[in-house]
């Protein structure tokens, strides 16, 4: 009789404890996913800022020189880290592509596009250059 009562007491003690631990684990999981989401948003914001700055630098250089080769040379390459500084491909976070399209009356346009290494598009900027016909 005493053993049965002791087992029931133990069960009565364990059930809320297990429920509490389960609740705690679920809460930790939800909060971890919220923090992971926030880290992802933060990385995306940093990448977008770097991509905008990078494209803007490239656009300013292209506007004054009108040459994609010189623009790429002044920027320091095609691959860049998360701060927009030139980096080798292994340490890079993004890359920049540039292409040129002719306009009217001697005007030329450069389309600068920044991508992550996974190929996700970050930003596009179109810059014009006019150095005379």
């Amino acid at each position, binding site marked *: 009789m005493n053993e049965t009562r002791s087992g029931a007491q133990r069960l009565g003690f364990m059930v809320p404890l297990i429920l509490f631990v389960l609740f705690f684990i679920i809460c930790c999981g939800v909060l971890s996913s*919220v923090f992971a989401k926030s880290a992802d*948003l933060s990385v995306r*914001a940093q990448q*977008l800022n770097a*991509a905008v700055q990078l494209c803007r630098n490239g656009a300013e250089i292209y*506007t004054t020189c009108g040459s994609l080769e010189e623009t790429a040379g002044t920027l320091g390459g095609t691959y860049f880290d998360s701060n927009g500084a030139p980096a080798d491909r292994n340490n890079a976070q993004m890359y920049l592509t540039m292409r040129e399209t002719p306009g*009217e009356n001697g*005007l030329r346009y450069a389309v600068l596009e920044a991508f992550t290494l996974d190929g996700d598009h970050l930003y596009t900027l179109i810059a*014009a*250059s006019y150095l005379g016909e």
Partner: protein
Amino acid sequence: MEKKRFRVGSIAVLFAVVILCVAVFAALTVVTTAQDLNISRQYAAHVQEIYDCENRGYQWVADTVAAIRQGEALPEGTWQEDDLLCTLVETDTIRLSIRLRVSDDSHSIEQWNCVTKWQPQSSWELWK
């Protein structure tokens, strides 16, 4: 008759408080980073608008120089001040003022003034 009671121990209370605090931190973190991304997107759109306006300005310079060299009519929106040709390129938030000097064999941009229009914030939605 013995009445069953659910006892909330001190550890349970401590865990609940910890979870509550971490939840508040998580909410603050995600709201802050979401607004950071929002501001980054607004800045990116603003830069695109600046360059759209500047590209239209360069288009005007190219058209004006070509018109003068070929003896054609000046582009619409062009006026003359002394020996300078002037125009104003505007978008919703950007105003670009250009003054151009064109000679027989060259041209020079005397003024390239790109400014953001002043837009007073009349509400308290500073983060919008």
